[in-house]
Structure formats: C-alpha cells, structure tokens
C-alpha cells in the first residue's frame, strides 16, 4: 500500500470528541463489514484517537486560576489579548481565558 495518511484532525479534538470517534471506530471494525485495507486505516485512526485521549488524561494543571471581579469597561485590555494568544491545548473547548494569576 502507499504511505499511511496521518490523522491531523485528531490532534485538535476535545476529549469528548475523541472518545466518541473512538467508540465509532471500534464498532465499525468489530462489525467487520469494511474491506481489509480500510480497516487498516481505521485501526490506525483508532490508535491515534486512543493516544490523543491518553495525552489529555495525562495533563495535570497544578494551579487554580482566579477570575477577578468584573472590570468597569469591557475594553480589549492587554490581559485579554494575552489570553487569546496562549491557546493552550487542554483537551477542552478552544481559545484561552484572560491571564489570571495562580491562587494556590
């Protein structure tokens, strides 16, 4: 066969998405109705999904971030801009929050 296609969409998935996709893949392969070559691809995808889930599970953020009481004007302050830039991949929904300091 040709070179294996990577699964780039998996890298961006949330945990919930990955687990759902994984369940689907396992069921499809077990049903046994797909041709062999395709089941090889699906197997690869299943492995990638499992890796992604484990990756997210292994994270362990020690800090707790504080949410300050609301500022007066909702202007685009530097904190919000900083928050947007640090798009941390934590397996949750996408962009980051305002840069809060750690508490304990």
């Amino acid at each position, binding site marked *: 066969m040709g070179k294996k296609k990577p699964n780039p969409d998996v890298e961006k998935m949330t*945990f919930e998405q990955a687990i759902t996709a994984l369940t689907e893949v396992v069921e499809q392969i077990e049903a*046994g109705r797909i041709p*062999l070559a395709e089941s090889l691809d699906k197997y690869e995808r299943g492995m990638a999904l499992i890796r992604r889930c484990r990756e997210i599970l292994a994270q362990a953020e020690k800090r707790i971030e504080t949410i300050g*009481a609301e500022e007066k004007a909702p202007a685009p302050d530097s904190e919000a801009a900083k928050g947007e830039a640090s798009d941390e991949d934590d397996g949750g929904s996408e962009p980051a929050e305002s840069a809060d300091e750690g*508490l304990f």
Partner: protein
Amino acid sequence: MARNTTRTYTVSEVSTLIKVALEGGLPGRLTVAGQISGFKRHASGHAYFALKDDKSVLAAVMWRSKLAAVRFAPEDGMAVLATGYIDLYEPTGKVQLYVDRLEPAGVGALQVAFEQMVKRLRAEGLFDDRHKKPLPRFPMRIGIVTSPSGAAIVDIVNSIRSRWPCARLFFRAVPVQGPGAAEEIAHAVAQVNRENARRRLDLLIVGRGGGSLEDLWAFNEEVLARAIHASRIPIISAVGHEVDITIADLVADARASTPTQAGVIAVPDRAEVSARLDQADRRLRQDLRSRLDLSRQRLATILAGRVFREPQGALAVPAQRVDELAMRLRHAARQGLTRLERRLADAHQRVAAIEPRRVLAEQRTRLEALAGVLDQRERSVLNANQLQCTALENRLQAMNPRAVLRRGYSLTRDAQSGRLITRSRDVRQDTAIVTELADEDWIESRVTARKEADDRADR
C-alpha cells in the same frame, strides 16, 4: 386634672385624654399575638392591617422602612407576633398598634419565607426538569464560585483533583453570607456567563459549607435563583450538608449534598476512563488480528489453487484448443472465416485472462500490505509463502514467450528511444540499434544498409 362630669369636652380634648390614658395604662412597647386580616400595602409602601383573636380586633400599621426587614410575605390568616407601641391616631380616632417587628408565630420567619419562595418559583416553572441542562461528560474547564475562606473550596478542589486532574480549575471568590451576599453571588454567576466566550468553562460549581438557615440564606434568595436559572453554563449547587436544601439546589442543573460530593458529580474517574481506553485498544488489536487471519487463509487457498500448483496444466487445455482451432481455421479458411477467427481470438483472450502473473502480482501486493502489520511469527509463515511464489514465478518464466529468443529470433530496438523496430523504415542509415538476444544478451550496432520489402496485405 380633676374629673369634672358636668363640664363639656371638645373632641380633641377627649382624644388627648385617651392618648394620655393609653400612655399611662399600657407598656411603652409590647408584643401582640394575633391573626393578620385585611392586609393591604398602600402605594406609599406602608402596610395597614388588623390583628384578630376570637373576640377582638386591633388595628395595625407598619411603615415601609420596618416592612423591609420582614423576610416573609405577611398574608391574611397568618398567625404572627407583632411588636411595637400602641397610640391613638387622632384624625381618625383609631387606636393602632404601630408595628416595627413582625414574626410568624411558631415557625421561624425564614422558614416561612423559604416555603413561600419555593411555592412561588415552582409555580413559575423555575425548578422544572426541562430547564435542567445535562452536565458535560468530560469537563475540562471548571469554574468554582464560593468563599475563599472556609472548607468548601478546599473540599471541592481536592475532590476534583483526586479524580480528574486533567481539568483546569477557575475560582471566583464571593461572600457566601451576610447582607448583599446573594447579589454578589448572582452577579458572579452572570459575569462568568458573560465572559465565557473567552474562558469557555464547561461547568460551574456554586456553593458553601454548612451553617444555620440564617447562614445559608443567601442561597434561598430570589436574585440568585434567577441568576442560576439564566446561566447557560451548567451549574452544580453544593450548599451545606445533606439535610440542607436551598432554592439554589432546586434551581440548579444538579445538586451535590456536600462540596466533596460536588467533585464526584462533576467529573468522571480517571482510572475508569483509562480502563475503557485500554479495552478499546485491546478490541482494536484483536479485531484486526482476526481480519488478517481471515485474509491470510484466503491467500493460502489461492496459492494452493490449481493455477499455481500446475500452471502448465491450467494452460494445457486452452493451449491445445488453440492448436485445434488453428487447424480448423486453416481447413475452413473459405467458410465462416470470421466466425472462427472470433472464436480463436476469444480463446486467446481466455488464456491471457488467466494472467497468472497479474494475479501473482496482486496477491503479492496484498501480501506486502499484510506483512507490515503482522508480527514475527506470522512473517515467517509469509516468507515461506513468498518462497513458494518465487518458485512458481520461475516456472512461469520458463514458459515465457521470450523463450523463443533462444531459437534464434531477436528483438531489435532503437538504442536511443528503446522503441522496438519492426520495419526498416523505423531506422535510418547510421542509426544506433540494440539487438536483444536470448537470456538478455544484447548487441549494439549501427545501420549500414536497409531494404524495405514490397507491400504485403497483412501486418
């Protein structure tokens, strides 16, 4: 002043006398137990009502400023304790109790207020199941709204961290008792909702540790109930202990009996989820192995088939048939030539269609694909099969049409283009040509002379 029965008094004089008599004859401040009747609030905010028992009625007034401190809603028929002073209101001649404190008799004011609130909000539908949002299965960003002091925050954080450390936690400090606390908490819930496009919290936990009904009162207030109801982020309410139910608990999308319990409800157990992943891993490998076994068996069957065991045998019959038909063609050249020609062509095709080499190549490709994922033991089995393939290939080679080259025929190609040369006109004087002989020997030469044959009818 001496009593004078013969003198005529003015109304005002009598009123004043009554006032004085009241002042002298009654305690300056007293508490009256009675049933509320005719309770009315004027536009001014002041309340006018009467207190009754089975024999008598006493008029009562409560100014707006005093009413504000009353936590429950006074209703007709309610048994209350009203505290204040008695005075005569001269313009109407009414003796009234000026109430500055009102309490339900028996059960506490707070309890009554709580029950009234539950009834009202339930009737509005605020507690209905259809408003309750499902909690996210795997929350990764969790907000906690509670007091920074106290055990609640510690319990919640420890509970979550021990089960699901991959979640990020966000803390919004609020007062959880005292005046204005309910408003503060409600404001915090609304704020977090407003800011959620950036922060993307999956879940909120709102609560506090145990305390008296008074201590927990903020979580019974309407402003907080409405803020929780309006929240688009799912909320777990974790207030007090097992036995304490607050309005916040009823309105929230889920209720935890304690702060620690909130962690259990909010997040899954990492160990459990990890075990599920292990299981999925095992199932995938198992299923694939089964599929590959099946394919291997099919391949083995094909290799064992007649085409490979006895290629000559497979070809023998068609080959013989070709000879046969060729003979008949020669004899019946004049009759039905086209029909026989077609049948000959057909037989040729069927021989070609067996295409053992193509089948072999295909199977080999499949073999290569499968070899990539099988382990060592299986690979050695494949190797054996590969050897068999090679052996068969060699046998096929022996039947190669190129064998004819050994009989003296050769192939001539243009040295530069590699194009096969079949006619003299394909070359010029001095063109370099390569002659392919048997066993891949070749000779290179140049054209010195050529001759083109006379026209012929066939190819």
